């Protein structure tokens, strides 16, 4: 029998790292169990000549394609958007674009403002100090003062505009539309032990330079130095409870595949919007027959992805290709509700600088714009290093039929039932995507682009996993309360994207981590009566 720990965190990704670091100052015995291991930057794709090919195999963003021992399979056959993630210390911050917008203040009040979905039980102001703290910890770059975004204070200057950014900026100016250099977690100067960006380009699947913030190189070194224990290659099967309905610990498989029980006084789940409901549903018991913390019946429901509407084309001038981080600018021109557009809510835009030669060849051949035969070379030279992209991150509203359940057949390598995704794109989202594609086409044509192609939705675009254990004040309509504690199990907390009530129209990692820090702060303030 292992000694109990004060706090057991499941998952060492974006939110698990933040909550571990924040709670470390309490000097409690904190243990984090992570199913993956520590990453080795010397093995990252950009260190080899075959860097692009790796994206189709061991460095695929899809766990189903990647199939590393640390991954678990996901049945997403019944979804037009496939789940992508990464399982390691750092979680999916190892493999993300580092685009760093926040939810807007209006995103927390969508029922009040627009009459749809639900308001959050917290507001933007409650998170403001944690956004700021998180930006310092992750190390952000950007330009303060965007008139259409919440005010941020990035500690580092924005990325260079580059060739692609200048072309996009000119086109947006011609059209009179908003654009701004994106806040990112790419270090543009040496920062807290991280080296500045040297434009490796292929930075979504991990940054060999360490310029892109992932929590294995930001939060975790601090948390470990402060005494947090991080146990890797440990996959949690279920959370156990006692006769009083309190969590008692977890059953997990250690690095040798041996079943272990780890007792704990407090359990915090940080497994993302798919992994968290999977774990809660796998923790069903006589006392909790429908899954743990699921008296509302909402565990796994209201899955929100952000359907991505992507359009791209080719200009005559050279673009940045793979010689820069992929994202550089955003636009909030269509972020807020304007019912004359035919849909409610809106979308953020992230512009994409370009692609490398292998990706360009493979995708263009699939799209039918790069021919086989003698003309292949001429056409490839017209396309390669001339691409500009526009991706709209469309706000997905919560719908209960979009959900995560347990697959009755599929299991991971430890025999634990795998998650199953059922998801459809709503009519509102479809109209939003059509609107975005039309605006994207205008921008590209204004920039002089031809050979315009569309990916809508981006099929392997399920990066943002939100809403499946939503927060709220009503136990019948939410899974956790307004400070992340389960309504049903008073020593169980959730800090990842599952708790989102609505999704906004931006990449969510900044907000996920701010929420994790906020929940940790709430816990610290209530330590004397945490379970009341």
């Amino acid at each position: 029998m292992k000694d109990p720990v004060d706090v057991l965190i499941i998952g060492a990704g974006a939110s698990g790292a933040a909550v571990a670091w924040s709670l470390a100052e309490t000097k409690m015995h904190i243990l984090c169990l992570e199913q993956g291991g520590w990453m080795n930057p010397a093995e990252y794709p950009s260190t080899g000549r075959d860097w692009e090919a790796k994206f189709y195999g061991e460095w695929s963003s899809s766990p189903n394609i990647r199939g590393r021992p640390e991954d678990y399979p996901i049945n997403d056959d019944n979804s037009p958007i496939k789940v992508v993630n990464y399982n390691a210390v750092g979680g999916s911050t190892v493999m993300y674009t580092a685009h760093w917008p926040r939810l807007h203040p209006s995103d927390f009040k969508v029922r009040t403002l627009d009459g749809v979905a639900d308001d959050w039980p917290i507001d933007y102001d409650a998170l403001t100090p944690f956004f700021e703290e998180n930006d310092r910890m992750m190390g952000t770059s950007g330009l303060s003062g965007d008139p259409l975004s919440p005010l941020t204070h990035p500690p580092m200057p924005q990325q260079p505009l580059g060739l692609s950014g200048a072309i996009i900026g000119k086109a947006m100016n011609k059209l009179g539309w908003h654009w701004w250099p994106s806040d990112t977690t790419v270090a543009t100067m040496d920062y807290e032990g991280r080296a500045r960006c040297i434009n490796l380009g292929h930075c979504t699947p991990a940054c060999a330079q360490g310029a892109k913030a992932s929590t294995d190189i930001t939060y975790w070194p601090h948390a470990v130095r402060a005494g947090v224990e991080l146990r890797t290659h440990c996959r949690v099967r279920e959370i156990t409870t006692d006769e009083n309905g309190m969590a008692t610990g977890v059953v997990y498989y250690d690095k040798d595949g041996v079943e272990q029980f780890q007792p704990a006084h407090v359990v915090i789940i940080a497994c993302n919007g798919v992994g968290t409901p999977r774990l809660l549903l796998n923790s069903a018991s006589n006392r909790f027959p429908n899954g743990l913390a699921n008296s509302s019946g909402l565990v796994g429901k209201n899955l929100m992805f952000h359907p991505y509407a992507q359009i791209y084309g080719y200009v005559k001038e050279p673009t940045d290709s793979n010689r820069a981080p992929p994202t550089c600018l955003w636009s909030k021109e269509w972020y807020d509700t304007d019912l004359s557009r035919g849909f409610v809510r809106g979308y953020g835009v992230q512009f994409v600088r370009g692609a490398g030669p292998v990706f360009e060849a493979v995708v263009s051949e699939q799209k039918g714009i790069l021919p086989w035969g003698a003309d292949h070379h001429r056409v490839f030279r017209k396309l390669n290093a001339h691409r500009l992209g526009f991706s709209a991150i469309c706000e997905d509203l919560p719908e209960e039929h979009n959900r995560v359940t347990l697959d009755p057949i599929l299991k991971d390598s430890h025999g634990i039932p795998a998650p199953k995704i059922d998801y459809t794109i709503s009519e509102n989202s479809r109209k939003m995507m059509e609107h975005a594609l039309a605006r994207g086409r205008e921008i590209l044509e204004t920039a002089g682009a031809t050979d315009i192609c569309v990916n809508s939705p981006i099929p392997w675009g399920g990066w943002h996993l939100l809403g499946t254990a939503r927060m709220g004040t009503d136990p019948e309509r939410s899974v956790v309360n307004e400070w992340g504690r389960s309504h049903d199990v008073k020593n169980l907390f959730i800090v990842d994207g599952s708790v989102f009530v609505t999704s906004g129209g931006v990449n969510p990692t900044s907000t996920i981590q701010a929420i994790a820090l906020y929940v940790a702060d709430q816990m610290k303030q209530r330590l004397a009566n945490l379970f009341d």
Partner: protein
Amino acid sequence: MSADNQLTRAQREDLRTVAAMIVPASDEYKVPGADDPAIQADMLATLGRDTKLVAAALDHLARFAGQPFAELDAAKRDAVAQEFRSSGGAAAATLVRVVLQCYYRDDRVLRSLGLELRAPFPKGHVLPDGDWSLLDPVKARAGTLRRAP
């Protein structure tokens, strides 16, 4: 049937033939075709997890051809290849991707494209800072962030 981790002689010959159809050699651009021995060797050496799908694609191609694809005359080859690409699904897409990912990392091809023969790390690339006065109209236009009640 193919073994799990290698292609038969007939499959290798068909791979070489279809690769040359996808990317033929060019005197104009001074590049080899994808049937070049070094590029073919790279494909075979790095097939790895793609072996099964590529083998399936090549078997599919041979079935369309009714005989070894490489032995068809040029006109028939073109017709079979078109049918293969349009109906070959994931296996055909994988085969084409394997051809292209090996072709576009060959030294001679990269040189022809004006690209350096190296991994991105550790040298990286230089990105021009650009003309930030482009942002002046956006600043002048300003705008208002939608407030929450």
